[in-house]
């Protein structure tokens, strides 16, 4: 059982908007997942965290699944995605972009960079279930 908890992926939500985060958390919990959820408010915090994990050399990073907004202060989501996909240790971590924008340019850009999925806000129960089924 203990091993089982350890194996559970940690969900990272990167979004500067509180309400968006709350909604995502509510729906994810509605799917009865027990995974740990960590929140970051901007791209810089996110990258700092990822870099720390990398230095640790801990294989834990393989256990993350990331839900990330595009428009964030300091460093935007696309830049973080780019950073992750260039980094051999972080490449395989699934990244799901969750953005208010349905701009096809952004969607194409994120797909090209290698995001696992692109959800247009608002986040809802269907999207939460998809995440649960596909990535957890």
């Amino acid at each position: 059982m203990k091993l089982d908890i350890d194996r559970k992926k940690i969900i990272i939500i990167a979004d500067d908007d509180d309400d968006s985060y709350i909604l995502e958390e509510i729906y994810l919990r509605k799917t009865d997942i027990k995974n740990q959820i960590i929140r970051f408010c901007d791209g810089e915090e996110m990258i700092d965290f990822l870099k720390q994990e990398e230095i640790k050399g801990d294989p834990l990073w393989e256990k993350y699944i990331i839900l990330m907004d595009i428009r964030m202060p300091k460093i935007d989501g696309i830049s973080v995605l780019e950073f992750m996909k260039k980094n051999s240790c972080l490449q395989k971590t699934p990244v799901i972009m969750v953005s208010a924008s349905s701009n096809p340019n952004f969607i194409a850009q994120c797909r090209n960079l290698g995001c696992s999925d692109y959800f247009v806000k608002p986040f809802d129960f269907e999207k939460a279930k998809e995440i649960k089924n596909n990535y957890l």
Partner: protein
Amino acid sequence: MLYNIITAGILYVNRVKMIKVVRLLIYICLGLSTPLYGYAEKKVLILCSYHQGYVWTDELNRGILTALKKSGLDLDIRIEYMDTKHYYNGQYFSILNSIYKYKYSTDKFNIIISCDNDALKFLSLYRGDLFPGTPVIYCGINNYEPSLVSGQSNCTVVAEEYNLKEIFDNILHLHENVRNIFVVSDKTTTGTNMEKVLADIIPSYENRLSFHIENDLTEETLLEKIKVLPDDTAILLVSFLKDKNGKSFDHIKVTKLISDNSPVPVYGYISYLLGYGIVGGSLKSPFRHGEITSNLAIDVLKGKNINSIPVMYEKFDTNFYDYNQLKRWNINKNILPAGSVIINDPFKFYYENKRKLLSIFIIILIQTAIIILLISNVVKRKKVQRRLTKAKCELESKNEEIQSVVYAASHDLRTPLVNIHGFYKLNKEYFDKLNQFISANINLKEMSEEISHIINEKIPYAFNIVFSNILRMDTLLNGLLSVSRIGDIKISLEYLDMNCLIANILNQMSFQIKENNIKIDVAPNLPQCYSDRDMTIQIFTNLISNSIKYRNKQTDSFIKIFGYRKDESVYCVEDNGIGIPQEYKDKIFELYHRLNPKDSKDGEGLGLTIVKRILFRLNGRIWVESEKGMGSKFYVALPKDRVK
């Protein structure tokens, strides 16, 4: 000889110098060839009565030589001056005869041009002895009578006529008031001869002119007499080559002397005095006399029989005047005889080239007009270009702005919208659940705790979020409107006292400043700028309020404001706040961009966007120097002066 030179030359030079030598030989040949044609030349003797330096003689000779040169004939010209003004007696003539005999016994002249009466006298005595058979043209002959050349053949005469009648008529024509003529003469041959002529003419002017002749005065007495001449007098200068004391005078110099001292106009009869004080009129020209004579001589040299040429009289068909004298005596140019030539006329060039000048003037005028047109065109084009560049700049920035608005709209404006959407859906789910409970109607009591949790907590919570997002949306839209409105506000530019302006702003913000315990330091010598008052207040209000907002709460905060003047007036708002990391320096001016959204919930992310936009309209700019944690320096540059 030539052959030897060439041979020696060829032997001497090497190949390199060959070309030079060939060229040299060509020159030698050409040089040698010139005299070959000279055998066809004609010999001419000009025998002058007087001496070189006597103006009459010099002018006459100049006329003769000019015409001879123009003829193109190859001539060998000799000139003899008998100098009879200084030496004149029978013994002198016989001495001259011996000299000429010695000199010219072997020379055969083709023609002799004899000048003035003394030369005629000499030749009539010795011609047969000295130059037998040589044709002679006698020129400059005064008081011609056929007896003067009686017994001579192979000769002709160009006689001098007297123009005194023409001169007097001219005086009467030009000066209505003149009744007296003061005649300046002397005891020389010329003077005596002229007096004789004068004596013949005087009776015809009875009742019109009275004559007063002076021929035996010293220079001093002459000038004294002249100086007191009454207004109704004119002077006729006949001759003043020698005065009573035997002092010699130059014809031209004496003319000038008399004219300068005279209160009345001075007239003369010889052309070379024109320009030296005489008014003018019909004038004898020795130069022209010489030309006429020469032309006859050329005819003879070309084969014309001299005996077929009749005696010629010089004609006076052109009148000459001196512009300066006309002006001095107030003589209207319009009353001068038709065809008169005016010397020293500053407008002469204009009259002669009136048409050319006019056309040149018109051409210059047209060109000037074209140039002005072109210049104004260029200026206009540059102005338009400048406006175009500015318009392009404005358009580009508008475009950028639209992009940023689109970006903001797609992200920032949509964010509250999607939140409302999301929480609406959540609430709908709650209501569905409540409906299920109600319609199922089972275990309502057991479920009442969950129902009351949904009704009392979950639904109001979601509604609160919806409402707060509606408010946020409203704020964002208002902000967007206020930014876009900056483009429409009317600007009224003026010179601003920045110390006064900043003091007012700080006064307005004094509550915030005191509340946050911020030390303010404003330099006393802020430069003035040329800007819009309200917009400038907005700029500095936003910057100062940013400095307060992003202060470092761990230390005592300060804000320093200072400025300097270069091409523009530059102001700096410096703080010791949290600073801006290098990579965000450009982003901070973007629409809705906030540095630390978590820390400052009160901002809309519009302050710097507005500042930047205002500065664009005011032709100013803004830049920032900052490092994370090291405070920031915001520089604002505004025009220091009215733009030309």
